């Protein structure tokens, strides 16, 4: 961790590690999102990240989902909530949200590009191999 504003999370088979890389926040997710109510865990976490990103005037956040082997629809909803909030930010607080995925993982290849359609002006699906 290079910045105390971005704290890691580890619970219920899921790990999230945010790390600054230059002026880009990289958020690495590992494991699975299949708990009964992932919103209890993730909604406040994404809100905290969103607040910290805007406080630091960052313009790019990269979420690496390639090592998430499954995400249930309630987990997807947490990302929908984050995107829905992010797209309302004023231009001076707006940032690009890049969702990195592996096309060889079926749920990622179908869910991530769909999520990006919610707010194509700020969300970029990025197919990353390796």
């Amino acid at each position, binding site marked *: 961790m290079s910045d105390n504003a971005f704290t890691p999370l580890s619970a219920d088979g899921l790990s999230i590690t945010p790390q600054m890389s230059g002026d880009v926040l990289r958020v690495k997710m590992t494991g699975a999102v299949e708990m009964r109510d992932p919103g209890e865990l993730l909604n406040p976490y994404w809100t905290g990240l969103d607040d910290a990103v805007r406080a630091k005037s960052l313009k790019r956040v990269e979420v690496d989902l390639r090592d998430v082997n499954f995400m249930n629809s309630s987990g997807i*909803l947490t990302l929908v909530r984050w995107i829905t909030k992010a797209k309302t930010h004023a231009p001076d607080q707006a940032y690009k949200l890049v969702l990195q995925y592996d096309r060889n993982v079926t749920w990622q290849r179908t*869910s991530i590009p769909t999520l990006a359609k919610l707010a194509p002006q700020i969300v970029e699906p990025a197919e990353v191999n390796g």
Partner: protein
Amino acid sequence: MEAMQITPVSSDYVELRFGPRWTYISCVRKFVASFFMIGLADKERAEQISMAASELLENAVKYASDEESYLKISIAKQSSVVDVCVKNRAEPHHINTLRRELALIQAGNPESVYLKKMESAAMTEGQSRLGLIRILYEANAKLRLDVHDNEVAIHALFPLEGA
């Protein structure tokens, strides 16, 4: 029923019954993926089927009215289809909600419906209610609901190409 029972009947059919415990769902999803990975030799279809099984089971566990929900999965190569069926008993108002939900998501363009449901779910508290439309859109399956008294059977039907 507390303990999980796995009963392979033939190479083309499997049925599982278990009590509505959340912790079993992940286990069943992984089993279904492995089973159909071998049976179909199609990783993408196997993962779509296991995703559908997981989403249907989550609904069943959330809305089951008693301890009788169970998962039934069958494969019927004669009709070139995989039928993922989850049955459980449910309260009448949950059944009515399910009927309305199915009618809604089957009435429009799946992608448009999915995006609209995402947007509306983001504005409300509570359950996502994205599971069924996710199965329809992301897994390209058909959905069918059978209700007998208070027993609900929801089917996700996957056509098999080249079967």
